[in-house]
């Protein structure tokens, strides 16, 4: 039997940190469409059930389009069973007022609930909250003879935390008979051994939304041998677009053109494609007189990628010796600034850069 384990879809996410206008609208649509595509994938690949381990939605109150689309997908794929465990971003508002909850939608509550599918598979889950956080793991009792899949949403930890309710105490879940611990909350794919029997896995989010969610995103396909009770899991990259943070060390570059050349090399090495989001972080130390046009740098990549952002984290360096014997106003200026006591070193470098750019008749930036 095939199952899909996904989480943290964050549908209806605002995503306006980087995007705006039509691009923002398009990306929001893509986020929702990825869910639709995943359900189609399940349908085409004869997947029996989709486990959504929390944060299907980004907020408690979601738009009608998202609500209707999700419901429509569930209703129209009645062959597939949807096991939906709410996360800290979710609420069941999207079900409120519905005459009938679809038969193929299986929900969880704040106490352990278990569903049996196939001949030998038990899918159990509990929605963690402040009230049940400490008792949840102790109260879990599983049938050893079953292939046990447990769904939870929270941050993995090896012990309880009094501060956060959504802590998943891995230690408390060991040796409980779990074959596969289907987790949600962490936005990057992660799979580790839980105990001698089972593993725990975060599938990560389905689509990266910001540059804190770089890398491959998708879901995990579980293939369960019901007779043997074994679970094979495969991560399936599925995101329409990827996000990359490309660090470019521009140390020693005399100008923007050389920085672009270095960035090209980094982009190539990172494997960025035209559909992707790319954030360049310019690093290293450049001379105060170095010509650096960050906007031009950004523009030179905008046509190459879906979205480009540039962070300038370069440091300015001043070669004092160079100006020591310089009798010009420039030399006098650098010496004067370097001798100043009302600025820190970083500021001095910027001041020197500004002054020199102004003297050179260049744009001060």
């Amino acid at each position, binding site marked *: 039997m095939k199952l899909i384990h996904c989480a943290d879809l964050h549908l209806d996410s*605002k995503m306006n940190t980087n995007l705006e206008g039509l691009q923002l609208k398009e990306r929001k649509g893509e986020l929702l469409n990825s869910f639709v595509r995943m359900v189609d994938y399940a349908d085409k690949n004869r997947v029996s059930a989709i486990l959504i381990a929390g944060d299907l939605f980004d907020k408690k109150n979601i738009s009608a389009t998202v609500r209707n689309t999700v419901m429509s997908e569930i209703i129209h794929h009645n062959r597939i069973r949807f096991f939906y465990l709410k996360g800290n971003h979710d609420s069941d508002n999207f079900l409120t007022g519905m005459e009938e909850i679809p038969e193929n939608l299986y929900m969880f509550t704040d106490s352990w609930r278990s569903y049996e599918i196939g001949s030998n598979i038990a899918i159990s889950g509990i929605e963690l909250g402040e009230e049940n956080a400490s008792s949840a793991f102790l109260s879990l009792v599983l049938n050893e003879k079953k292939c046990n899949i447990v769904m939870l949403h929270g941050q993995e930890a090896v012990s309880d935390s009094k501060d956060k309710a959504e802590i998943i105490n891995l230690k408390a879940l060991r040796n409980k008979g779990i074959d596969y611990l289907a987790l949600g909350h962490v936005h990057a794919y992660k799979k580790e051994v839980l105990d001698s029997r089972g593993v725990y896995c975060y599938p990560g989010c389905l689509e990266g939304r910001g540059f804190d969610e770089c890398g491959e995103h998708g879901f995990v396909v579980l293939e369960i041998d019901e007779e043997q009770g074994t679970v094979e899991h495969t991560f399936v990259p599925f995101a329409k677009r990827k996000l990359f943070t490309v660090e470019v060390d521009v140390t020693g570059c005399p100008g923007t053109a050389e920085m672009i050349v270095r960035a090209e090399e980094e982009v190539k090495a990172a494997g960025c494609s035209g559909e992707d989001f790319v954030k360049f972080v310019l690093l290293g130390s450049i001379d105060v007189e170095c010509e650096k046009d960050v906007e031009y740098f950004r523009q030179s990549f905008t046509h190459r990628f879906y979205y480009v952002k540039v962070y300038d984290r370069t440091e300015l360096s001043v070669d004092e010796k160079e100006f020591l014997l310089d*009798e*010009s*106003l420039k030399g006098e200026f650098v010496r004067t*600034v370097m001798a*100043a006591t009302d600025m820190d070193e970083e*500021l001095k470098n910027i001041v020197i850069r500004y*002054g020199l750019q*102004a003297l050179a*008749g260049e744009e001060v930036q």
Partner: protein
Amino acid sequence: MKLLSCHIENFGRIHDYTMDFSRGTNIICENNGWGKSTFAAFIRAMFYGLEGSKKQKIEDNERKRYAPWQGGAFGGWLTFETGGKKYRVTRIFHDKDANDEFELRDAETNMESRDYSCRLGEELFQLGHDSFMRTVFIDQTYRGAETADDINAKLGNLVEDSNDINNFVSAGETLKKLAAEITPNRATGTASKRKEQIAQLQREIKDGASIEKSLTEVTGLLAKESEQYEQFKEQLKNIQEEQLRVSKLQEAFAKKGEWTRLNENLQTAERELQEARQSFPGDIPSLEEVIEKLDRCDVFEAALDRAGEHRLSAEEESFVSSHAANFENGMASEEEMERFIEMAGDISGLKQKLATMAMTEDEKQRLESLKKVYAGQESSGVGILSAKWSERSAKKTALPTQKAALSTLQAVRPEEKNNKGYVLCLVGAAVVALGILLSVFHQPVYLWGSVVAVGAVLILSGPVMAKKNRKPREVRESQEVTDMRRALDEDERFIAEVDGEVKDFLERYGKVFEEYMVPSLLAEIASEEREYAGLMEKEQRLQKDSCKDKIRELSNQTEAFLKQYGFVGTGKDDISTLYLLKDTTKRYARLLTERDTYTREMATADSVRRELEEYLVHLGYRPTEKLKVQLSQIREDISEYSVKKTSMEKAKRELETFEEGCDDKLLQQAAESGELPSPDALAEENNRITEERDQSKKAIDNYNMRLELLQQDLDELEDKKRDLELLQETQEEEIKRYHCLVFAKKYLEKAKESMTAKYTAPLLNAFDKYYKMLTASPAEHFHLDANTKLTMDELGKQREVNTLSLGYRDLVGICMRLALVEAMYTEEKPFLLMDDPFSNFDDEKLEAARRFIGEIAGEYQIIYLTCSKARG
């Protein structure tokens, strides 16, 4: 640098004025109103163009100020020498700057020069217009205490020949401008504006804190309402289930009797089906299979019937046995037997022919008798003679009539009445009757035939005769008698001849002539003559024929053939024997076929029977002799079973259909239950809860709508928080940038001051030099700061020179300007344009000023303008 000459075409009040300049001092001493200041402005305009074109006041707007009163273009040219080259600059001024004309030519080659642009003054002196006015142009007013930036820049060249100092001004302005754009200290600065935005956002965010509270409250209400809604749904579900149950129970009450009947029907049908099933010792065969086997029974019976039909009787068996030896080597073929039968026919034909050809005794006697009369005779000609006789008889018969007619004609010539034809007809009829009579009495055919023929001729001759004698009266009248007589004679002669001829003929054949017997005698002779010829021919043919040999040969073959099959030919009736052989052969063959068919059909019947018996055994039956009856019974049993099964299924279906519509448990309950709740009460309850549920749904929708709006507000609040964050981030960066810009400007100025401090000493020395020239005392109480701001010690404090008397201030100004010029122009000295600078000097100073001019004239070309000869 030196001025060489100039020509003013039109400029202010000066018109068509040319002047050549010499080295040293060039004094233009004219009365007030001549236009000295205009002249000085012209020289300045040749280098810098006109100033203040956009100014409204005429004193600030040189274009308006120096435009000719009569209007139109104005300007002129100026020749000067610099860097060892001579140039002539021409400027024609029009209504606005854009229309002004500028031309620079090499004064020696008159070729257009591109060494300088229209910004000639700036490029030559490295000074702006104002700075030019502050240095090279010296009038009676001291224009400022501080040097302009470009003067400082120019001064900077003293220290270092680099361009950076030249960009100091623009760098300072750039930094100042950028800082001013950002400055948080003025309302126009972006940082200031952003500060306002931040404050606004912070206020809005503070105000928006209640959104989350509202959201929580509405969410709580929604949850509560949702719970209520679910309860309503549950209640409604229960009510509806109860309604359904009651409805079904009511229905069940009504249907209970029917259900019982259907149950009984089913039980009966099941029992009957079970009974029908017991007819089968083993599995129930399919009806199709049994029908197929019954068809095989028909095949079996048909085979038996056919075998019976083809079974040989004892006589037939005996026949076959008796002929088996004869046909041991096979039977004669049909063709062969036909051939021999045909051969026997030939023998018979030959024998018959032989018999036909043989003469009877009577024939032989007759032939002998006839031979006596007719032997050696050729054809008697009896036929011709008979014809003649007939003609003679006819004529003789007509003779009396003709004679009577002739007599009549001769006598009275009466109308001739010809009765000869009618007589002939009557005679002919009598002859025919005679012929018929002869035939009745079995006379030979030739005899009665001849009689009849004669009679017929007579009958036919009658009308001819009658016609012949019916001649026209006129002819008869002329020749009738003669012709009639002649004819009559001829007829009598003919009769006599024929009578003689016949008499001879009859005698030759031994007949006696009797007139009335002649025709029959002639006919008899003709008949005998033919009979004789026929017998003679037969006798001759018999003597020639070989039939007997042929008959013998064929008979031998036939006998041999018959013998081959056990038959004996007699030679007499072989054809019968052959037919017997044929029949025997045919029968023998048929009987053999019959016997084969019988054997085959019996084999078929046995095979089918075995098959059927095996089938019955397979089904658990003991086969009987009457297989068909047995199978028919099975078929009937199957049909019966099928009917029972159908009945049972129908009964079951009816029951199931019935039970589908009414729960069997309900039926049980119906049987057990007492009074049911009122459907109306249930419906009322249903309506009430439905209404409450709908209201709850509306409330939920409203809460959801409110939540959506609140969420939008919250989203907006989130956006504001994000915007605030971004703004604060930007603000922080901009403030940092602002400080950096301010610092940059500050430290750039400091650097510049540090730089200018290096040339204040030479500048102060120059000032001291010129001050001494004019006052003969040192300028030790004067000070100069890094910005070339001049101050002087007075009453223990440095004071600005503006506080000095007018004349003294002019003196200090002239010294300072010359000091600046000296400091600024270390290589090529510029000309000095002095517009009556000493007008405020007292006589003592004026004298010193004259000496001063004299002294500096060696170093500078001076254009000195004054209205006073005392100062000139």
